[in-house]
């Protein structure tokens, strides 16, 4: 009886083992099918941090924000236009004295306008095309330097104001126009700068640089 049971049980076990093995094999195949694409895509998804040139096309491109590439392109476009027109060479002072006025960021993208203006200043001042007056007006960029100037003027007995005699004032505005069609978004950022002759009060130079981006998600450039 026992032998019969054993004999009876044994094939069942074999069949059971065989079924279990088949299930294991099927599961293994399924796992490979599921994991293989993940394994192949893993190097793409896990991109290691690396250095890229600032403003390089390899950088991140966003649809809803002003990127570093946009700022560099805008400042470059402005500088090219200033050099091309030669407006700074028409100034009374050599090099032209420039006052940085207000440049309004009227976009939903938060960034410091100085990212653009300081790059422009660097180029203009270091190449000797212009000198930026940082001690002008009621809200000077360098309050301490203005105080020192005033003190020296006072000690010399000079009362006429002000010591710096700037030629131009630079003002501007950055705006955006957003549109969408389905999931696709389009945004145009417009950088506008204006140079005003402080002696005549007239606009002597103006430039617009547009940047239009289209897409439905942010991406890494090429």
């Amino acid at each position, binding site marked *: 009886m026992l032998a019969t049971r054993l004999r009876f049980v044994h094939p069942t076990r074999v069949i059971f083992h065989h079924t279990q093995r088949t299930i294991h094999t099927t599961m293994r195949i399924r796992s490979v099918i599921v994991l293989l694409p993940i394994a192949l895509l893993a190097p793409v998804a896990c991109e290691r941090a690396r250095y890229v040139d600032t403003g390089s096309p390899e950088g991140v491109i966003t649809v809803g924000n002003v990127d570093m590439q946009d700022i560099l392109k805008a400042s470059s476009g402005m500088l090219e236009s200033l050099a091309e*027109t030669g407006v700074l060479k028409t100034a009374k002072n050599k090099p032209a004295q420039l006052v940085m006025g207000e440049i309004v960021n009227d976009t939903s993208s938060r960034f410091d306008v100085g990212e653009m203006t300081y790059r422009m200043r660097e180029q203009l001042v270091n190449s000797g095309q212009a000198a930026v007056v940082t001690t002008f007006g009621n809200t000077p960029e360098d309050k301490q330097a203005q105080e020192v100037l005033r003190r020296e003027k006072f000690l010399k007995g000079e009362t006429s104001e002000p010591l710096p005699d700037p030629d131009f004032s630079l003002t501007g505005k950055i705006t955006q126009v957003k549109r969408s069609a389905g999931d696709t978004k389009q945004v145009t950022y417009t950088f506008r700068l204006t140079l005003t002759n402080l002696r005549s009060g007239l606009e002597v130079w103006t430039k617009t640089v547009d940047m239009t981006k289209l897409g439905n998600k942010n991406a890494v450039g090429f």
Partner: protein
Amino acid sequence: MICTTNVTTTKSSAHRALRATTVATFITAAIAVAGCGSVNTTYTRTTPADSAVAAQTRVNDLFQQIFLTAKEVRMNRTKGGPMEVQIDVENNGFAYKTFSYRFDWVDTAGNVIPSQLSVWKVTNVPSGGSTVIRAIAPSDDASDFRLQLRQSES
């Protein structure tokens, strides 16, 4: 015999139909490929401009060279003093091309003039179309330039 003839006729009809379908498919595909954002360009100038200069290109990406070609390079002095370069870039491929470019300016000694004007800029050219990429030198000292061009992989 009639039957065979009929069969033969049917076969040739089928072949003709297949051939016609194939030709139609090819024509449609060609129209579709050429028609997807391609541009027809008309221009009056047939000889190089007076300000056109000879340029040398070092090709590292043959694919890029085949489809994106610099047709003419012009250099002028601007009203403000610095040099201006204009390059006509043509897209001879069947697809919309996006590429980025950067100009580096050099002085008479051949040294690069570092400037905030040398930045990567991105532009697009539709199939069969052309665009003019231009740059202004950062100072009057710049006498020559170098252009780097990178094509998008997409």
